[in-house]
């Protein structure tokens, strides 16, 4: 017996439910999967691929915890069907650190400036910040505020997150000078 749709568990497809074969390219690695067509990208990442770094808070587009990069741009993974992004490049928080575990400059900055407490919102803030700094390497404080305005945090009061974003810009600039 399959789980009822209403229990919210993305177990296997319910009887008669349409499925589709897709390739999810996550952090540079392709995964061939057969998924129910209604599977949200956030659930495909967390349950089907067991990459639980992508968090889900509200599941209707409001909180930003589930933010991932799609072809380099931040999007809400809870507002995208997994089957819609067949073959496209997805970056999750697991894709930020270097292979040797060295932190990404944005992660380093959040650590230095205490940009997190419980950490629930953090993956979304990190990916939003990574994409923002690529386009705006030297942001003003106002630009940084605007950039993170779509992400909610219940713990920090945002001041340290803002400081982290600005610190991340410094660290990223430093890294480029070295390179």
């Amino acid at each position, binding site marked *: 017996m399959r789980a009822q*749709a*209403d*229990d*919210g*568990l*993305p177990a296997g497809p*319910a009887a*008669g*439910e*349409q499925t*589709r074969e897709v390739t999810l390219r996550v952090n540079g690695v392709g995964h061939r999967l057969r998924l*129910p*067509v*209604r599977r*949200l990208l956030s*659930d495909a990442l967390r349950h089907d691929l067991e990459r639980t770094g992508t968090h889900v808070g509200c*599941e*209707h*587009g409001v909180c*930003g915890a589930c*933010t991932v990069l*799609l072809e380099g*741009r*931040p*999007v*809400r993974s*809870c*507002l*995208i*069907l997994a*089957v*819609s992004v*067949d073959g496209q490049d997805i970056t999750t928080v697991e894709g930020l650190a270097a292979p040797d575990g060295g932190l990404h400059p944005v992660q380093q900055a959040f650590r230095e400036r205490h940009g997190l407490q419980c950490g629930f919102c953090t993956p979304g803030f990190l990916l*939003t910040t990574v994409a*923002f700094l690529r386009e705006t390497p030297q942001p003003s404080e106002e630009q940084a505020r*605007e*950039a993170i*305005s*779509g992400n909610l945090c219940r713990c920090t009061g945002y001041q340290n997150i803002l400081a982290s974003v600005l610190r991340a810009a410094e660290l990223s600039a430093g890294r480029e000078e070295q390179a």
Partner: protein
Amino acid sequence: MSGGRITALKPAPFGYSAPASLAEALAVLAEVGEHAKVLAGGQSLLPLLSMRLAAPRHLVDINRVPGLDRVEIVDGSVRVGALVRHTDLERHEGAAAAQPLLRQALRLVGHPTIRNRGTCVGSIAHADPAAELPGVLVVLGGRVEASTAWGSRQVPAAEFFLSPLETALRPGELATSVSFPVAGPRTGTAFVELSRRRGDYALVGVAAVVELAPDTSISSARVGLVSVGPTPLLVDLSEVLVGRPGGARELAAAAALALEHAEPEADIHASAQYRARLVEVLTTRALAQALANASHEEAA
């Protein structure tokens, strides 16, 4: 929500097609049209599905249809295809130069992350009475191209919005593009709104278009009001502004006229009285900004 237990939010099952061409999309829609929904950016549809406020039998995902992602400036209009994301149009320099109101409004649509996925045409097809782009379409007198397997028709903005979330699109019709007329000479535009938090839907939003005569007096003025009626409202303010320079007293008279046409209602975000006051204040601000932009155009 149905059932006793509040559970994780998941869509009810649906059939799904991801057509690879426009012809295929229109053929699928012709077949399943009555019970189908088009899936564009999903930034309005997915929350409705997940909360089970909508349970269409079939989704036609247009994200793989080539050719719908173009912004073109043709025949005096900025034509925006059905897969142009808010971010793409916001960044399009040609579109911003041809019709500045587009960028002025787009930066107020949700958050950057929402704009990366949501489409301009989807926002117009969704017809939320608080959304910015429907107000822009109405104040500019644009049109929507609605297509079926048998052909397409142009629906003028004035006939497109019927009631909240309801448009003149028929079952099985795909909105293939939306056209916004380019700005004429000596024309200034502005979009101002107030929302509870940055990125939220507007409590009240005002799109203004002001044209100047060669002697710099006002030759026409109109506003599109959002969130103060079942559909975006167009108010022609020419009767109080034409031939005048647009001083404070004239703008106040124009704002009072705008308010006469508005139908502000109370909801959890704001009282009707507060919305009414916002119509006046924001109309005055939008007109003043549009006027300043028009004078700037004139000087340039």
